[in-house]
């Protein structure tokens, strides 16, 4: 069963198009990474899924109902981001106790355990926390609420790397114990790719890719070597990325299935084959222009 079904979804803010005819389906109990550059519409999409925003057109179903302003969706989902606000009259420990009754599956021993692990000051108000600690605290809510649909929008903003690792571990451990549908948005894929099962890559509000991480990792291959030789192999095929090196050396990234049969031949021709990191691949796929930032400088 698809927890989220999205068909031709479009969202306008006034005249600005934030989501552009997006269609996808997210299966139950999968961890999906929503990847895209800044301003690609990740947060807008997540807020529509959480029921905060109303789609301009198209179909969006969450738990087979329209999420906007829906009590059922609200009861079964939680949206965590770094703009969450809590009243100053509630201390951090108050927040944990006060938010708990809203969520049917709330695990208070987990919440308190994480709270103690990160050694929060229970008497502090939420608004006093630094950016990173705020994210850490919010992530506790996201994990402990054990919502059938857990939406984490850039959950690690401001966290230091040790805390990030702890957070990913905690999320995964609790997910294994209590499987649920999780969507994590991020512009940095490398950090979370091991955690993810699927990746939804969007660019300028439109879908770029939706596949499993394993497929993404084998989606493309990089070839480097003599420009002429390289070009002879990739002739007529879509080049995802191309970078010139000195002395007629060229690096191109190309879809792996286009060239798989020629691997042996390529190697024998003295060219090098590289796997393309998922991060780089996402950047190539969402690039508005072919070629990197270097082109800007080489043009002059």
């Amino acid at each position, binding site marked *: 069963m698809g927890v989220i079904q999205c068909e031709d979804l479009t969202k306008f803010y006034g005249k600005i198009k934030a989501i552009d005819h997006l269609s996808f389906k997210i299966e139950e109990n999968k961890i999906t990474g929503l990847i895209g550059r800044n301003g690609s519409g990740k947060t807008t999409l997540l807020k529509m899924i959480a029921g905060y925003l109303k789609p301009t057109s198209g179909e969006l179903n969450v738990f087979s109902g329209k999420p906007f302003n829906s009590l059922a969706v609200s009861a079964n989902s939680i949206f965590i981001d770094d703009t*969450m606000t809590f009243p100053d009259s509630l201390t951090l420990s108050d927040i944990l106790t006060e938010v708990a009754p809203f969520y049917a599956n709330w695990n208070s021993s987990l919440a308190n355990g994480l709270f103690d692990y990160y050694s929060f000051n229970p008497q502090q108000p939420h608004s006093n926390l630094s950016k990173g600690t705020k994210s850490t605290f919010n992530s506790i809510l996201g994990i402990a609420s054990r919502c059938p649909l857990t939406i984490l929008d850039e959950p690690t903003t401001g966290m230091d790397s040790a805390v990030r690792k702890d957070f990913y571990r905690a999320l995964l451990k609790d997910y294994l114990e209590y499987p649920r549908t999780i969507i994590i948005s991020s512009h940095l894929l490398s950090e979370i790719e091991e955690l993810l099962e699927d990746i939804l890559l969007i660019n300028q509000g439109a879908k770029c890719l939706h596949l499993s991480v394993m497929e993404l990792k084998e989606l493309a291959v990089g070839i480097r070597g003599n420009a002429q030789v390289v070009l002879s192999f990739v002739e007529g095929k879509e080049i995802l990325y191309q970078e010139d090196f000195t002395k007629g050396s060229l690096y191109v990234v190309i879809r792996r299935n286009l060239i798989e049969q020629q691997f042996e031949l390529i190697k024998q021709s003295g060219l090098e084959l590289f796997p393309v990191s998922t991060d780089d691949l996402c950047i190539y796929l969402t690039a508005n222009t072919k070629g990197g930032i270097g082109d800007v400088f080489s043009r002059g």
Partner: protein
Amino acid sequence: MSSAEVNLLTASVKQYHYKLKAYTGLVNRLIIAQMLALVFSYVGATGMMSSGNDELTVTVSTYSASMVIVFSIFWIITIAITLTTKQYKKIELPLVGTRISGNLSDVGFLLTASVYAGMTSSLFGVLLRIIMYFTSDSSKIVFDEFSLAFPDLLLGMVVAILYMALISAMAYCTGVLAQVNMAFVIIIPVLIFGSLKVYTNFMQSVFKFYVGETFLPLFALKILFTSLILFGISLLLSNRMEVNR
């Protein structure tokens, strides 16, 4: 995956409890406002009457807790409006609920605040009398209203609470309108107050409708009915609104 079943009422009640804890700090502002109003009521009597001839001047200063009630009404206006602001609405986001439950819990909170403000402000009449008792010569104090009749105290409380409820409903509705479109805040006063004649007529009829009503059950009915309509309008308006853009 177990799907949590929640009904609107439980969600609203939970949000109400949450908000009660979240906003109790607003009482501090009420206390300050009431204390200031008390000082004004005591120092500058609300009414004065002087008469006399060449040799005699008689001044009768009149005191009441009306100023405290008016200040408390200002307080409830400010909180009703702040409750509708985006900044305050964001507090609902981590909680399970919908726009309706958010509004219902706001209404619940405002009614609670109305009861609290209505009670405390009416009790200030008692405080004012006790202060007067100890600070003034009793031969200068007129007994008749000093000996506040208990039924009058209760009547004052009920009426104050009703007024607070009405005014908070008005302020809340205005706040929601402002959230829907800032233009309403300009358009509506312009429509009503645009012509002075319309304005006077409007104010007079409003005045007659509520302030002119001398039969308590009817007054209560009018207020409850109006508040219900105003809160209903707010609810319908905000139910289609997006949050946290």
